[in-house]
């Protein structure tokens, strides 16, 4: 992928990610999050991870964000009214974030493997999904079963949580 496209998608991702946090209206936040995830999927495709890119769009930008919008509309949330800001908490939050970005830049620029060259790959006639599937179903078969059970447990939990009277 050309560097120009990379930086365009990174800028889109970070801008709309920032809008998620800055918007006062929850619906606008959710829609910004959709655009952020689309740009992220484009970055995955730029890394030749087509399967994960498609899953990102289907699962996140599709299912998860529809669920978010559905809940926002179900609860009928209005744009948040301004409240008195809790100043010590706000300052503490900013200090933690600034220190975090400082540590992050130190670690990233001191990381010697970080300037690795973008080597060409040849996935052969099978393509991306075939390779991911081979690793997933051979090496990580047990983990896959566990994750399937986890989803089952999660859906049972949601049914129980949404009952009106908990016993």
């Amino acid at each position, binding site marked *: 992928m050309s*560097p120009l496209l990379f930086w365009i998608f990174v800028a889109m991702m970070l801008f709309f990610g920032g809008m998620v946090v800055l918007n006062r209206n*929850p619906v606008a936040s959710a829609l910004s999050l959709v655009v952020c995830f689309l740009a992220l999927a484009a970055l995955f495709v730029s890394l030749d991870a087509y399967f994960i890119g498609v899953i990102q769009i289907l699962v996140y930008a599709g299912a998860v964000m529809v669920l978010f919008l559905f809940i926002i509309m179900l609860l009928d949330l209005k744009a*948040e009214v301004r409240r008195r800001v809790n100043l010590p908490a706000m300052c503490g939050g900013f200090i933690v974030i600034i220190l975090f970005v400082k540590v992050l830049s130190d670690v990233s620029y001191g990381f010697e493997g970080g300037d690795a060259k973008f080597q060409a790959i040849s996935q052969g006639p099978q393509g991306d999904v075939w390779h991911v599937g081979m690793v997933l179903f051979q090496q990580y078969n047990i983990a896959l079963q566990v994750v399937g059970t986890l989803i089952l447990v999660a859906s049972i939990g949601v049914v129980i949580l949404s009952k009106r009277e908990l016993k």
Partner: protein
Amino acid sequence: MVTLNDYLIASGLLFAIGFAGVLLRRNVIIIFMALELMLNAANLSLIGFSRYNVHDGLPDYNGQVLAFFIITVAAAEVTVGLAIIVALFRARQTTHVEDINTLKF
């Protein structure tokens, strides 16, 4: 030429944005969306490491499989979390975290 560092920095900045959202916002739903941002930032760095670690002309697919598992667990987490938020809203008629302080010391 885009290097691995560029992807890692992009992922780290996205994580910082999500972190800022969790620390600074007071609406439970927005906090939840910021959590999703942080999970996706982790995914971006995993895919980046996978793509830049080339063996025999193939990227390291372990990273992509881990990202796949993260997406699956995140989807399960979203359903349970939103169910909890709906139950909370039924009990308290609010999504503002400062109104929910029964457990606060």
